[in-house]
Structure formats: C-alpha cells, structure tokens
C-alpha cells in the first residue's frame, strides 16, 4: 500500500492505493496521528485506488472518525472504490463515507 498526502489549509487528503491490509492499516494510523498532532481539522481518506480494505483498516477509520467527531473535527472516506464501498456496506459503516 502507498499513501500520498495532499494538504490544503487545515485539511488533508490521504490517497491510499493498492491493498489496505494489516501493515497498511498501521501506516494509515501513523499518518492520521501525525496529521492530528499537526492540528489538521479535516482528514479525507481517498480510497478510489484501494483494491481492498481489511478489518484492521476499517478499525482505524472508525476509531479516528469517532475521536475527531468528538473534537468537532472530521475524518471521512472519500471516493471509495466499488470493492471498498462493498466492504463498508457489508459491515454497516456507510456513515464513514463523505456525503
């Protein structure tokens, strides 16, 4: 998995490609924590190029979605690939997707 970062003002887009597997979920968490530490208010996790999202990756998204929401900030999934969209729907987490 690779992560590409795009910063604009207080918001950050993380573009993940290939398999969001166990080690990929760890890398995602490291990137999210670094962004929070830098005071990023909005994090968009772009999953257009992700071929799959495992439960460890889903846990990271869910954990920081909740944590940031409590602080009045946000973390959402943007542009999920069809595979990722199916994984989010099968686990009942369509709320994680940006609307």
């Amino acid at each position, binding site marked *: 998995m690779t992560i590409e970062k795009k910063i604009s003002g207080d918001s950050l887009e993380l573009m993940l490609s290939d398999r969001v*597997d166990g080690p990929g979920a760890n890398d995602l968490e490291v990137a999210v924590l670094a962004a929070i530490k830098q005071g990023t208010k909005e994090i968009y996790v772009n999953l257009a190029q992700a071929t*799959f999202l495992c439960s460890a990756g889903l846990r990271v998204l869910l954990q920081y979605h909740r944590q940031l929401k409590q602080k009045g900030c946000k973390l959402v999934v943007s542009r999920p690939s069809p595979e990722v969209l199916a994984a989010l729907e*099968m686990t009942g987490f369509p709320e994680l997707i940006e609307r």
Partner: protein
Amino acid sequence: MQEQLELTLPNQQCAVARLQDQLEAFARERQLAPRVLHDLQLALEEHLTNVITHGYEDQLPHAIHIRLRLQGAEVQVEVEDDGRPFNPLEHPAPDLSLPLADRPIGGLGIHMMRKALDGMEYRRAAGKNHLLLIKRL
C-alpha cells in the same frame, strides 16, 4: 494452465503480502473475476492475520499451508495451521443494528469473511486447524 496453487508461509505478517501477490498473479492467469479475487484476498487477509496474531502460544516459527484449487464452479482454499484450536464459524456475529457511536470496534474480520465467501468449513485434526474457504466463480 495451473489449476492449483500450493504455498507454505511462515507465521509472519509480511508473508501474507507475498501470498496476496501470488494470488493476484494466479487470478490474472486464470482470468478470475475481480470480485472473486477481492473476496478471496479479503477472507485470507482476515483469517491469516487472526492465525498469526492470536494462534500461537510460543514465539517459535510455524508453517501455515495454503492449498487453492479451482473445483468446478468454485474456488476452494484450504488453510492449515498448527496453532491453538480456532473455529471462526463459532464466532458470534457483531450487532450491526447499533448506532455507529456504540458499535464495538472488534469482531468485524470474521463477519467480513462470512459476507465475502459462499461457504466455510472447519475441522480440527491431528493437532491442526483446517479451514476451507469456498467462493463461487
């Protein structure tokens, strides 16, 4: 053309990524539908992560055997490990009716396996777990 794929992995997470690469090459060669590949990769990722993370009581190296075969209109993947007895079929399903804020974060992996696959069969024999993952083509 190759009808089956047999691999032995060490109980290390980095070996799972190598297996996924090999599975992608196999699927390309056999022209398997992207959905079939995706669902098998997801199920294997979840199961192997569970085995590697929770399966062993010691810190020693262990071998995990994978046998994938195309059988009629389905793909069958057998995963054999010598870890502690673990039957994912006995794992309760998570309560997906709870609101997002109250939803427990664990227990999703096996749920994803159930949803992605068309069947799973488990047996414990000679001190080993055998899990058969079934996906229709």
